[in-house]
């Protein structure tokens, strides 16, 4: 009998696994519960929520991220498709470059955006020459969100399109579908779950975006101050504000998580059933 398969060791392994799971869940759960508890026990919670700074930040966060997502889907879907169908040479390098913002510190991304689109930046100097100033505007918020969150969607789209067997596309073509029609009738319907999953991740990342935004767009109430930025600003003055905003952010995150879960559970055409 191999000692590694000894049942006593296995039992203790199972017990320690259970303890680890409990500890991990507590580690995540306790701070979140503490946040909710702080919100509930605060008499001024709803007063704080009705503060203009809070709902302005919420509104700004939702609408800038919605625009970001719209642009990401329109541009990112074809990019994902092209990358899925070209897996060699230059496309491999492009693939790595596209995913770089995922690992790049957001503050660095913000500085990079300033160097490009700032008033003295490579592109920014021409833009300011014709009267367009991007830094510290709502457009800058959207730029920052797209820069950091688009890779999540593009990556998901690339993997999604890659998972569609090329045989399906071949058959569709022999049945008279030109490539574009094949994309709409075969590739896209077989990939929408992956695309929605990527979109949810990307959206979550855009909503939580902080570093690049504060560097490139600043923190101007009603203009560039999104929920995470408002949380920090509130923290400097009144913690009840900060808590109220944090609870809002938590609720939005949970909604995204729920959405993700729904996508995953509506399994892929039941083939694994």
């Amino acid at each position: 009998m191999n000692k590694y398969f000894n049942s006593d060791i296995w039992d203790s392994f199972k017990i320690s696994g259970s303890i680890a799971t409990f500890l991990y869940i507590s580690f995540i759960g306790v701070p979140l519960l503490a946040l909710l508890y702080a919100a509930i026990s605060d008499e001024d919670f709803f007063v704080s929520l009705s503060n203009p700074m809070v709902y302005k930040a919420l509104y700004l966060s939702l609408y800038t991220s919605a625009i970001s997502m719209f642009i990401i889907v329109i541009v990112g879907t074809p990019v994902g498709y092209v990358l899925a169908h070209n897996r060699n040479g230059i496309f491999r390098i492009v693939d790595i470059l596209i995913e770089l913002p995922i690992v790049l510190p957001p503050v660095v991304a913000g500085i990079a955006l300033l160097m490009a689109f700032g008033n003295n930046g490579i592109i920014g100097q021409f833009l300011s020459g014709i009267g367009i100033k991007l830094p510290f505007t709502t457009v800058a918020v959207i730029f920052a969100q797209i820069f950091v969150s688009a890779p999540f969607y593009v990556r998901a789209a690339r993997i999604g399109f890659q998972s569609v067997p090329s045989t399906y596309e071949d058959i569709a073509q022999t049945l008279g579908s030109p490539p574009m029609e094949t994309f709409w009738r075969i590739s896209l319907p077989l990939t929408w779950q992956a695309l929605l999953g990527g979109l949810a991740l990307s959206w979550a990342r855009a909503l939580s975006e902080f570093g690049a935004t504060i560097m490139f767009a600043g923190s101007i109430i009603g203009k560039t101050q999104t929920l995470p930025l408002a949380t920090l600003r509130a923290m400097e003055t009144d913690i009840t504000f900060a808590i109220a905003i944090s609870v809002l952010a938590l609720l939005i995150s949970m909604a995204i998580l729920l959405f993700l879960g729904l996508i995953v559970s509506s399994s892929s055409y039941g083939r694994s059933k």
Partner: protein
Amino acid sequence: MNGESTHGCFEVILGEFKLSMDLAVKPGTVLVLFGPSGSGKTTVLRTIAGLIAPSEGVICIGGVEVFNKINGVNVPSYKRKVGYVPQDMLLFPHLTVMENIAYGIKNNKISDSVIETLIEKLDLDGLEDRYEWELSGGQRQRVALARALAPEPGILLLDEAFSSLDSGTRSRTRSYVRQVLQSIGIPVIMVTHDKEEAISMGDVLAIIESGELVELGDPVSILGHPSRETVANLLGVENVLSLKVKNIFQDQGIMECASESFSLEIPVSNNVSINQDVKIGLRADDVILASVEPKGLSARNIKKGKIQDIYIESGMYRIEIDCGHIVVSHVTKRAVDELGLIVGSEIWCVIKSASCFVLQD
């Protein structure tokens, strides 16, 4: 080549692999591409379908030139009117049976009747609203075939279309398909490495080895007299006997098949009638030799014959015996030594009925 012909003479280069082909198929006939895996059979189909571009040559489907290197003709896949049934990944998983079949045709009155006819012909009634995972293997094959036929293609390409089915379903699906193909009358090119399938479906057999067409002809005669050892190995069946059904003993489960000088008792096969010509397949490994007349055996066929030829083939001795019909047997060297087998000596062949099978019904 006449105006309506479907033929191809082309060269494909894929990395290290080079394929050169010169093939023609008549409407209503089935050309079977037979060969070991990696020989380029699938590449031939994909090239005809327009999914791979040849580096040289001409491809013509139903008299229409779809590829011509010299004239720069290369009709894209979606305009070639090619019915293609691949080996796996058969049906679009997000579409129902009905939607799959209708994929390649525009919605109108005529298309509805085409689909109805196909559903009826391929016995798909009642499955219209099902998805791929709700179908059996045989049903999927038939839906894939219906989908390929619905746009009324000029040629049908089947890539090991029956290989994933169990043998019972396979022969049933095969007979459906054959009936449908006969009624449609378009050229068919079919890839298989199943010898029974090649014989039962093919009108012409092309043997392909490492990208080259090595043998072309009647499937049964290629089987009967393989001109190359590799071909014989590939085909697996060493004995193909052309006989006539003389008697059917339904109660005993056997039938008697004979030619002028040779007869065999074999298990009753469906779809045959008395006086029908049949081809009987028999593996050389299933023919037992005896140097004296054997007695008290259960085997139904004991034939006396004369050894015509002996040679070594894939590690075994191949003995050809004339029993009124040439019968091939495989035996070991020890058996050759112990029985003293030499060309010209008399020998008894013992053939179990159950090892004989009807190749064409």
